């Protein structure tokens, strides 16, 4: 083999691997990316049942109900709209009414959001960034959230809870 042929082999091999990687990435991008929505956005966009997305907002006070066998229902609100959420499993340590929450799952036929994962932040002053941004954009940002968030420089870990897949 000449030097040129050797180099071409290596370059050709590299391009082949890169092409495979690009194909894998594009394929994965199409299937496994999850969008973020707030209840208002859900109401406006008419998301189809069964399509997975992340729902963020505040847990509406007074709506948390615990059923049998770790079933939980609550409503997520963002000031503009509310969306009922059903979850089965253990909620994160700092899941509270009135606090920010992000749930992942899909709507069912009756318009209830069936979550299989609920994330909350492990900090009393914390609000998930997606939720804070969305609330700010809609003008529902209360200044005391900001004051609280600034008071604590250390906001931290994410508790996550994964329930039984339904």
């Amino acid at each position: 083999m000449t030097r040129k042929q050797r180099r071409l082999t290596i370059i050709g091999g590299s391009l082949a691997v890169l092409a495979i990687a690009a194909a894998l990435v594009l394929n994965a991008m199409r299937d496994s990316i999850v969008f973020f929505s707030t209840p208002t956005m859900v109401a406006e966009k008419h998301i189809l049942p069964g399509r997975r997305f992340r729902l963020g907002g505040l847990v509406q006070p007074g709506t948390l109900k615990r059923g049998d066998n770790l079933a939980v229902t609550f409503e997520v609100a963002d000031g503009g709209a509310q969306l009922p959420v059903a979850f089965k499993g253990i909620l994160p340590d700092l899941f509270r009414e009135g606090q920010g929450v992000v749930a992942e799952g899909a709507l069912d036929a009756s318009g209830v959001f069936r979550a299989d994962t609920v994330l909350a932040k492990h900090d009393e002053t914390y609000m998930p960034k997606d939720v804070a941004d969305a609330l700010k954009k809609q003008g529902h940002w209360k200044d005391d959230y900001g004051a609280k968030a600034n008071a604590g420089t250390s906001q931290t870990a994410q508790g996550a809870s994964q329930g039984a897949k339904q």
Partner: protein
Amino acid sequence: MIAETGHYALVLALALALIQSTVPILGARLNDGALMNVARSTALAQLLFVALSFAALVTLHVTSDFSVANVFENSHSLKPMIYKITGVWGNHEGSMLLWVSILALFGGLVAAFGNNLPLSLRAHVLAVQAWIASAFYLFILITSNPFLRIANPPIEGRDLNPVLQDIGLAVHPPMLYLGYVGFSISFSFAIAALLEGRIDAAWARWVRPWTLVAWIFLTLGIAMGSYWAYYELGWGGWWFWDPVENASLMPWLAGTALLHSAVVMEKRNALKVWTILLSILTFSLSLLGTFLVRSGVLTSVHAFATDPTRGVFILLILCIFIGGSLTLYAWRASALKQGGLFAPISREGALVLNNLFLTTACATVFIGTLYPLALEVLTDDKISVGPPFFNLTFAPLFVPLMIAMPFGPMLAWKRGDLLGAMQRLLAAGIAALVALALVWAWTGGGSTLAPLAIGLGVFVIAGALSDLAERTGVFRMPPATAMRRARGLPRSTWGTAFAHAGVGIALIGIVCETTWNTEYIATMRPDDLAKVAGYDVRLEGLSQRQGPNFREMVAQFTVGLDGERLAVMTPSKRNFTTRAGASTTEAALLTRGFSQLYISLGDVTGDGGIAVRIYHKPLVLLIWFGPVLMAFGGLLSLSDRRLRVGAPKPAKALRGLQAAE
């Protein structure tokens, strides 16, 4: 007084770093030995002052001086001593101080043990180190000073976030930083080579041990962090493809590639330009990791910081160093002479293949981590890229890499014999097929992918063993000869075998845990019995207990197997009175061989029951045992005679390196 001393020492370290970043370069241009030697003394003095500054912050935390804002926000007088010390780096300011301290430590080590380096190379390397150090000193002093005082000192502190009050914090960040920052040495060597326009095999010989040290620490740091998340977050996951985890995985992948390409450069004087580029990329990814974690652009497990001025400052550092080094590379790389030739099927070819797959895998992680950020900046759409993305991209790229892995060490340099390598790997292949068939038969053919993956893991392990068997001739020679040959084998060969086997072991652990783990989630009342993977888990009762700075509710479980009582497990839920409403879940673990039983608690229900999560995780410990074995292989390789030859005080220098662990 201590705070002011620490602050002042940090300013002095900055001044020293500024001298170190200019004078030695000037000396190299003027060919003035005295000016070049300034680098050595300033590097050591810089280390002294940073160490002083760090010691000052530790003292402030230990003595609970709440007049210092950093201590007030992250400490509490009732906190146990160990967490008072580890709390120093459990916050943004302190962890950045740890970062520069380690940077200065590496600079000091080069200065102290680099006597055999050519004078101008050492001057350039230390000057580049000082550029990085200056940037980060400025960052700390301007945006994140840990020594700021509070006008009206409060009596009590706000306490460290409870999740961080764990022994994991003592080990994980320092290890990770030793890894991240350790790659700054190979970066500095690469920039120095570009500045000097000269690079040879000796250069690779100097770079390799430093890269290896950084890689060992990063490997252990990532494994440690993963185990910490596993037992502390309370739901049994050990890798979340969280952006912060990816931030440490990317430099690891690039660093692993660098480690292998540096071998080619040292042995065959080939792949020079590529090795330089990898050195730059590896440290750039370390800087990117620091940016992702420290700037607060992500909201995830470790994002402690929210201040945007910090983010912009680190972004600026990132752009200057990555942009600058890549520009320099584009400008000067063509000046470096091309090295030895090799056929595609050869040891070099195998190592190129390794580099190709590792860097491509690294690129997919990069895309998955940064694409959501880029999309949000550009279109305001918020998306999340989770485990499915990485499983679909990262995993398929690792499969060919692992298939090729046993072939590499079997091939000769320059021109290899693939057929011969296949013959020698026949035994490994048979072992893999037997394992595949056994697993498939034993699990009743439930999953097809899992037995295949386990077969691959066995192939990698058996391949590493057959390489050793081949070299020692253990099955062909009399035992005495084989023994002698085994002793005569270079330690780096043993290191390669251990590290490669470690990859296979980790793969087996990952596959077994994800495929056959059993999960049981339910509300339990005292005397309730749960059956999980053959174990009988009985809740005996709940009790309250008072800890140093928390109250905890402890659940007593007895675990039995086939009617025999095995152990008592006591998971708990802690409420931290010192930090209103903060609570953590302390999981209880029962280790049986390499498998574990895992219990964590949820909320108490109204009628006296408690939500309980019980997992049985088969062979889960292999996931972390694999990386430990890899790091051990790295350590063996580091102690190889070849890397010591030519050093003036070889034994001492190496002991010094190992002691840093």
